[in-house]
C-alpha cells in the first residue's frame, strides 16, 4: 500500500509543471499519508482473508481497521455498498473455458463467506473451489471474469449520463441555431470551447477537427467519472478513474489513436531521428520506441495515482474519527470537527483535481497527436 502511495507521489510530481495546486496538495498528501502509515503501524495486524471481512460484529467493532476500510473503498467490488449492512449485489458473469458462460448474482457469495456453483470470492477475485472449499489454482486460471462490478456499473452510469447530457445539449444547439447558449448548454459550451481551442487547436494544429470527437469523449468521460467519484453517496463514490484497468483502457485508446495516425514524419522521427549520427541512433531509436509506450503508460499511472490518492486521503480523514473514537468517544468527536473540515477542503481540492486531471490527460493526448500528425520539421519538446 505504501509503495503504491510513494509511486503515486512520484507520478504526481511529473505533472507538477502543469498543476498549479500541486505543491500544497503534495505537502498535504505526504503529511497525511505518513499519518496513515503511522496509524496502520500502531493498529493490530489483521487477517484479510474471506473469514475476516469488514468488521460488523460487536466483538470486532473495537478493532477498527482504517487500512482495510480505505482499500475496500478504492478497489473494485462485486457488490455496491450503500449504507450500513445494505449492499446491492451485482451480477457475476464469468466465462470458464471448461464450463462455459456462467451468470448469477454476487449475492450468492454472501460477501465471500459462501461458495456457489464451484466458485468463490477470494480477496475480491472469483476463484474456482473444490467440494471441500479449497481453492483450485488450475481451474481458477480458466476463469475470465467479466462481471458487472461496482466500477463497471459506475462506467455505465457515466456513459449514460454523458449520452443524456450531450445529446440534449446537441438538441438545444439545433433548436437555438445562431443564438446565444442557454441553460446546460451555456454551462458546457465554455468547456467544449476550451477543449477545442486550448487543447486541440493549440496542440494539434490545422488537423485538429478530425480528433475533436475523440478528445471530447475522453475529456468528459474522465471529468464525469472523476466528479461522480467525489459524490459520497450512490450513484457516486466509485473509484472509476482511480482504477488501473480504466486508466489502462483510456491510455490504450490514446496509444492506438496516436500510433494509427502517425504520419511518415512521425515514424521517421522515431525510427531514425533526422540530423543525428548513426551511432547515436543505436541508442536513440530504442529510447524513442520505448517512449511510444512510455507516454501512454505515464498517462495511465498519473490519472490512476492522482484519483486514488485523493480518495485515500478523504477516506483517511474519515477513518481518523473512528481511529480516535475507538480509544475514547470524546477524542472521536473532537477529531471529527477537524476531520470533516479537512474532508470538505480535500473534496474541493479534488474537484479542482478532477478538472485538472481530465485536462492533463486530454492535453497530453492532443500533444502526442500533434506530434503524430505534424508536417513541418520543427522540433516540439515531447512531454513524458
Amino acid at each position: 500500500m505504501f509503495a503504491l502511495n510513494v509511486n503515486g507521489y512520484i507520478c504526481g510530481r511529473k505533472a507538477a509543471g502543469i498543476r498549479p495546486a500541486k505543491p500544497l496538495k503534495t505537502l498535504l498528501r505526504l503529511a497525511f499519508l505518513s499519518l496513515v502509515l503511522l496509524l496502520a503501524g500502531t493498529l493490530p495486524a489483521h487477517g484479510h482473508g474471506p473469514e475476516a471481512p469488514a468488521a460488523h460484529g460487536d466483538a470486532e467493532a473495537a478493532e477498527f481497521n482504517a487500512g482495510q476500510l480505505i482499500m475496500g473503498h478504492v478497489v473494485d467490488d462485486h457488490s455496491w455498498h450503500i449504507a450500513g449492512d445494505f449492499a446491492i449485489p451485482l451480477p457475476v458473469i464469468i466465462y470458464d473455458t471448461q464450463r462455459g458462460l456462467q451468470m448469477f448474482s454476487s449475492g450468492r457469495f454472501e460477501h465471500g463467506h459462501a461458495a456457489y456453483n464451484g466458485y468463490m470470492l477470494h480477496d475480491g477475485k472469483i476463484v474456482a473451489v473444490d467440494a471441500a472449499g479449497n481453492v483450485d489454482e488450475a481451474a481458477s486460471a480458466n476463469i475470465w471474469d467479466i462481471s458487472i462490478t461496482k466500477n463497471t456499473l459506475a462506467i455505465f452510469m457515466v456513459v449514460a449520463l454523458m449520452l443524456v447530457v450531450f445529446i440534449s445539449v446537441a438538441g438545444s444547439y439545433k433548436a437555438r441555431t445562431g443564438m446565444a447558449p442557454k441553460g446546460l448548454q451555456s454551462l458546457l459550451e465554455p468547456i467544449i470551447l476550451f477543449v477545442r481551442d486550448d487543447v486541440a487547436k493549440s496542440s494539434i494544429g490545422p488537423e485538429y477537427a478530425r480528433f475533436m470527437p475523440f478528445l471530447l469523449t475522453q475529456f468528459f468521460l474522465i471529468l464525469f467519472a472523476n466528479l461522480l467519484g467525489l459524490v459520497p453517496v450512490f450513484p457516486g463514490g466509485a473509484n472509476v478513474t482511480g482504477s488501473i484497468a480504466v486508466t489502462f483502457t483510456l491510455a490504450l485508446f490514446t496509444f492506438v489513436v496516436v500510433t494509427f495516425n502517425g504520419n511518415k514524419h512521425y515514424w521517421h522521427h522515431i525510427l531514425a531521428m533526422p540530423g543525428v549520427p548513426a551511432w547515436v541512433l543505436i541508442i536513440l531509436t530504442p529510447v524513442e520506441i520505448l517512449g511510444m509506450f512510455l507516454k501512454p503508460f505515464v498517462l495511465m499511472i498519473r490519472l490512476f495515482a492522482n484519483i486514488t490518492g485523493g480518495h485515500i486521503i478523504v477516506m483517511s480523514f474519515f477513518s481518523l474519527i473512528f481511529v480516535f473514537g475507538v480509544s475514547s468517544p470524546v477524542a472521536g468527536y473532537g477529531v471529527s470537527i477537524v476531520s470533516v473540515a479537512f474532508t470538505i477542503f480535500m473534496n474541493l481540492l479534488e474537484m479542482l483535481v478532477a478538472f485538472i486531471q481530465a485536462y492533463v490527460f486530454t492535453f497530453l493526448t492532443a500533444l502526442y497527436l500533434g506530434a503524430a500528425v505534424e508536417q513541418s520539421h520543427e522540433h516540439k519538446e515531447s512531454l513524458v
Partner: protein
Amino acid sequence: MLLASLVEPAFGLIFWMTLSFGVAFFLLAKFAWKPILNALHERERSIEDAIGEARKAREEVAAMKAGNEELLQQARNERDQLLKEAREIRDREIAGAKDRAKAEADAILARAREDIRNEKNAAITEMKNLVGELSIEVAERILREKLSDKAAQEALLEKVLKESDLRRS
C-alpha cells in the same frame, strides 16, 4: 492481496471499459459532438460574417459621404462658374450698351452740329441777301427823293430805316 487488486488491471473492467468507451465515442460523435461542433462553427462564422458586413456597410457609408462631399463641391464650383460667367456677360452687355449709346449720341450730336451749321449758313446767306436787298431798296429811295436838304435827307434816312426796320420786324 487487496493491494494487488488495486494495481493489477482487471480483465473484466478493461473489457467493459473498452466497450463503454467505444459505444460512448460512436454515439456521442454522431449525435452530440458533430451537431455541437457544427453549430459552434456555424455560429462563429455567422458572427464573423455579421461583423464583416457591418464593416463593409460602414465603409460604404463613408464612401457615400465622401461622394456626397465631392458632389457638393462640384455643384458649388459649378455655381461659382455660372455666377462668374453671368457677371462677365452682364459687364459685357453693359459695356456694349454704353458704347452703342455713346456712338448714337455722338452721331446725333454730329447730325445736330451739321444741321446747325447748315442753318447758320442758310441764315447768313439769307442775311446777306436781305442786306443786299435792303441796301438796294435804301439806295433806290434815296435816289428817288431829292437830296437837297441835309436835314431833310437825314430825316428821310431815318424814316426809311424805320420803315425798313418795321417791315422787317
